[in-house]
């Protein structure tokens, strides 16, 4: 599928002297917007009331969006790699924005299916394309620090929720003055519809800014002082290239899929239940020693560690290597989960510290995986391979809540649960992390038979265009 010439990869090849530090904000402009997907709880109650529906029915909107994220990243990954980041960011902006506008129409006309289609399907496609759009470009601009580069962008996905939550509350307060953002007040459906229109327009502008400043490096570009032969010296890191179609035939891809699935499922186990979990862990009869406001603060703290983990751990992986950092995420994570299950209810500060570190590993797992893929499969179609790997996220998005909710449903009624009721779910997560740990240990360098011919250039290649004057 061809794209208009102003979006084409050949039009955005950077001239010599281009400052590569313009690329991270371009990536952040996209990820900060699509990160709103993790701030849907702000208007969830309002939609339940507006549609006279259930939490489950409204929760499906988010579930559809995450499933569509995984599917669209897998399906459009090769298209993204072929056409470049500007076309991908532009397309993501259109879908993401259209999702909000169609969703607003659905709210205004009280047609829930339109919200499913708008925010869920259209928005989900925007999420998937937007999520992978800057990744391979960042890896090519920062071959010396791929973990740092992708960590910065994917940190933005975590940061997007931090921005969208207070911003949404503020906007809904303007559109419905009876709503003040405190517990117990709910904005009107009309206020949520206006919020969707506002976010749709703001995100469109913001993401387009990223699309129009992004550039790809020329094929022979290298950062000062960077010697690719030094990269090869590290174990597991290849200077060869593997296509996306071949990558999924390798055991390394599926082992990494398992690693991501286990890490994300375990993290979602805590994220999904964060606020009620801390209250239940410190329940004394019918009341908890942890107030609702304190529980909300705990959720905020987890968001901070989720975001910080993406940047800090992914950057650290540039120094200690991808396989060792996943041994930390999964191995130390496993120990922390055991501690959470056994001594987590002895003191609030122990519970908070354990959960915060676990969530930082969850974020780190997301942010480090593109660099791990680069190490194993090269840069040729790393965006497409990353897209296919994100199906693990979609699967974990279903499995994680199913495990935690399934166990808790079997143990009792919300509001009456205690720390002991969470133990079976936490030990299931321990088992999952053990599986992920073993899968990571089994990852070896990719066999030579999967390598592309030596003259296969990464798709940043300007050589295919022959038109150097088009470079910016």
């Amino acid at each position, binding site marked *: 599928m061809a794209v208009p010439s102003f979006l084409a990869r050949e039009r955005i090849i*950077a*001239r*010599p*002297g*281009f*400052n*590569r*530090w*313009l690329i991270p*904000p*371009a990536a*952040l*402009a996209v990820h*900060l917007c699509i990160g709103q997907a993790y701030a849907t709880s702000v208007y969830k109650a309002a939609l339940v009331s507006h549609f006279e529906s259930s939490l489950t029915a409204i929760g499906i909107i988010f579930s559809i969006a995450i499933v569509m994220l995984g599917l669209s990243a897998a399906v459009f990954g090769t298209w993204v790699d072929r056409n470049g980041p500007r076309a991908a960011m532009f397309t993501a902006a259109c879908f993401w924005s259209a999702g909000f506008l169609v969703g607003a129409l659905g709210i205004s006309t009280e047609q829930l299916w339109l919200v499913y289609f708008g925010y869920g399907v259209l928005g989900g496609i925007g999420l998937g394309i937007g999520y992978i759009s800057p990744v391979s470009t960042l890896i090519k601009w920062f071959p010396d620090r791929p973990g740092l580069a992708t960590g910065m962008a994917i940190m*933005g996905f975590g*940061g997007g*929720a*931090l*921005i*969208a*939550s*207070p*911003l949404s509350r503020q906007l809904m307060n303007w559109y419905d003055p009876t709503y003040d953002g405190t517990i117990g007040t709910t904005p009107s459906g009309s206020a949520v519809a206006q919020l969707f229109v506002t976010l749709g327009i703001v995100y469109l502008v*913001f993401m387009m*800014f990223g699309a129009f*400043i992004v550039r790809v*490096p*020329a094929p*022979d*570009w*290298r*950062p*000062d002082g960077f010697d690719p032969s030094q990269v090869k010296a590290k174990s597991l890191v290849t200077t060869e290239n593997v296509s996306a179609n071949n990558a999924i035939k390798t055991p390394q891809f599926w082992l990494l899929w398992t690693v991501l699935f286990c890490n994300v499922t375990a993290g979602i186990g805590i994220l999904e239940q964060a606020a009620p979990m801390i209250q239940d862990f410190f329940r004394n009869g019918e009341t908890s020693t942890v107030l609702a*406001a*304190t529980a*909300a*603060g*705990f*959720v*905020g*703290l987890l*968001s*901070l560690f989720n975001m910080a983990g993406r940047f800090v751990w992914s950057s650290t992986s540039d120094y200690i290597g991808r396989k060792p950092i996943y041994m930390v995420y999964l191995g130390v994570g496993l120990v922390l989960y055991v501690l959470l299950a056994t001594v987590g209810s002895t003191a609030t500060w122990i519970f*908070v510290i354990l959960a915060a570190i676990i969530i930082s590993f969850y974020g780190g797992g997301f942010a480090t995986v593109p660099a791990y893929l680069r190490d194993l499969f090269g840069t040729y179609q790393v965006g497409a391979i990353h897209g296919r790997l994100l199906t693990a996220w979609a699967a974990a998005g279903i499995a994680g809540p199913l495990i935690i909710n399934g166990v808790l449903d079997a143990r009792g009624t919300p509001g009456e649960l205690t720390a002991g009721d969470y133990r079976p779910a936490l030990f299931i997560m321990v088992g999952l992390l053990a599986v992920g740990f073993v899968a990571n240990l089994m990852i070896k360098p990719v066999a030579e038979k999967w390598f592309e011919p030596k003259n296969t250039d990464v798709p940043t290649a300007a050589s295919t265009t022959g038109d*150097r*004057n088009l*470079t*910016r």
Partner: protein
Amino acid sequence: MSTPRHAGDQQATTNTPTGLVAFAWALVGVPLAYGLYNTVKAASALFGG
């Protein structure tokens, strides 16, 4: 800033304006700072009781 090397090129070099780089970082940094401030404020309830 890193200076790219472009073997045998005939094309003009560019010099990305520092102001553009600063503006781009500010555009993403200011909303992020707003989000961080509000989240830290919310999280402080955890320590303030």
